């Protein structure tokens, strides 16, 4: 018979290991190696081309004294927080409405989901037009006789990020709805019955029983939404270009501009390293939530 002695550990599942080589390479070279490279070069004074002249934390000091960076961070914080909360709320609301055994469920679901199919570029452009005071909603409402109606968030530095949020929500809440709906459908029908027998109103059942039961779905959703928020870039490019002024700048754009427009790679690396640090702070609690209690993935 083929194996009478214990085969070598390395050769065990050899095919599986070979098949996983692309993944290992990606993980080690790209996600780990590249990130490390970027972090290392953020301590140089590289300009247009990477070079290894060490300058310590100089890039970071400069970064944190740059107004545009601070504005970017603040914008991302506002957008991220609101996007997270509102897309979860809106997505859940939509899913809960669709879960009421309504008619035309497929139709409504498609309506809520289709924005997810279009690119951020399209999303940004559309909402730029809709929120254009000379052309879009404001003009339309004014022409109905409400002449004092104002809706021009994209031209108000204090409101522009909310204008972006409207577009972001439009784009992303459909997917959240989809995930939530799957979660709701996965909940034991008997729990609903039990709460009905207990005489608990529907909203309370959702709030105190159903939502806590949907933790796995919520975690998945959270991961997807958060990963999307940090990468916020295309939408800004298409909708506001960072303006008015620098009022809607975001870190991803800051990095891009620093690396390619200002040709200060190291500054861009420093900024992206800061983004990485922020991400790690997001991931740690998530990993804890996800894997903390139980073993085995």
């Amino acid at each position, binding site marked *: 018979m083929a194996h009478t002695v214990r085969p070598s550990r390395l050769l065990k599942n050899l095919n599986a290991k070979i098949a996983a080589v692309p993944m290992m390479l990606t993980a080690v070279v790209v996600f780990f190696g590249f990130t490390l490279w970027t972090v290392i070069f953020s301590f140089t004074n590289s300009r247009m081309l990477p070079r290894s002249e060490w300058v310590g934390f100089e890039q970071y000091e400069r970064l944190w004294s740059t107004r545009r960076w601070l504005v970017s961070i603040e914008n991302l914080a506002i957008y991220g927080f609101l996007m997270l909360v509102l897309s979860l709320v809106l997505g859940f609301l939509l899913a809960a409405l669709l879960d009421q055994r309504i008619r035309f469920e497929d139709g409504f679901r498609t309506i809520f989901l289709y924005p997810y199919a279009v690119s951020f570029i399209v999303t940004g452009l559309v909402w730029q037009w809709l929120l254009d005071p000379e052309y879009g909603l404001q003009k339309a409402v004014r022409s109905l006789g409400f002449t004092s109606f104002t809706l021009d968030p994209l031209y108000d530095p204090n409101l522009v990020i909310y204008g972006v949020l409207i577009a972001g929500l439009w784009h992303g809440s459909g997917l959240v709805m989809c995930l939530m709906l799957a979660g709701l459908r996965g909940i034991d029908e008997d729990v609903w019955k*039990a709460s009905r027998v207990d005489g*608990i109103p529907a909203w309370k059942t959702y709030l105190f*029983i159903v939502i806590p039961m949907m933790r796995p779905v919520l975690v998945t959703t959270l991961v997807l939404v958060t990963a999307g928020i940090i990468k916020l870039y295309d939408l800004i490019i298409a909708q506001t270009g960072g303006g008015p002024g620098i009022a809607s700048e975001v870190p991803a754009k800051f990095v891009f501009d620093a690396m390619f427009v200002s040709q200060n790679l190291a500054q861009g690396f420093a900024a992206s390293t800061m983004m990485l640090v922020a991400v790690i702070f997001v991931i740690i609690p998530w990993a804890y939530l996800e894997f903390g209690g139980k073993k085995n993935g």
Partner: protein
Amino acid sequence: MQSNVSIKNLRLEYGPVAVLKDLDLDIGKGEFLVLLGSSGCGKSTLLNCIAGLLEPTDGSIFINGQNVTWAEPSERGIGMVFQSYALYPQMTVEGNLTFGLRNAKVPKDEIKRRVAKASDMLQIQPLLSRKPAALSGGQRQRVAIGRALVRDVDVFLFDEPLSNLDAKLRAELRVEIKRLHQRLGNTMIYVTHDQVEAMTLADRIAIMRGGVVLQLAAPKEIYNRPAHKYVADFIGSPAMNFLDAVIDPREPLIARAGDLAIPLEHYDFERHGHTGPVWFGIRPENLATGDAANSAPVQVDLIAELVEPMGAETLVWSTLFGTPFKLRMDGQARIEAGDVVRVGLDPKLASIFDKSDELRV
């Protein structure tokens, strides 16, 4: 018997399919009624209608004399226990027990009192501060019962509460539920497809098939005098043996099966003088073997094809006139495959069904 839950002409349709077909049922106060039937026969549907979780298409439901057909589940005075427990996973056991009461604004000390009583009764006091995930299956089911208990209602509904548990636990909890019923004296309606549960728990059993009740009677009656071939076949394990027989109109007191002539003068007819093709049914445990066989009115010799020793008893599989024929013998009986067994058959203990409508004759 004063009727506590009363169902009149209940009909429920899913589109063109009627799941409950003009069903009538009266359940007395304090009665333990078991709804028994195979999967898909409409037991859960009926229970959900009584609970108010499904809207019937037609008919009405009375609880304590009041028409509750359109009332909210929480207003019907019912408590319900589910197969999957349906505990609220993120609340403690105490939270689970009290959620409904707190919601109904029951005073604090009243809640306390009821929880104490229920948890005492079910011996779940040490678990009160745990979450359901930290409980075993049996404990969860006990909490689920407790949740119904604290509602202080007249009618308890159980939907296969034990079928997710393993055999040992099932037997234990079955006894607990029976005891609970004896102590509380509430009306209980209990859905199951396990005949042992039905036989041991019920005051009366309603056997359902295809949305109608085939027979509603006490367990012994159902066991000894099944009204329908389906009931006879469904109840009893191993199932009843059926022989293809004919009652000739010329000799209405003899059933002929194969080359046997079975005298029926001691058979307790439901429909006297019935003739024609029939199923002659006899339970494996009602067949006499050994010495007793020789004194039975009818005797046959069978070849044991397969012997299943099961500890306390032994099952023997054989064939008679081309159909499988089982007998149940004592656990210590020494018999092996290939042996010939003389079997005695007492028509008094048999059940005979008309072949066309499958009803008892």
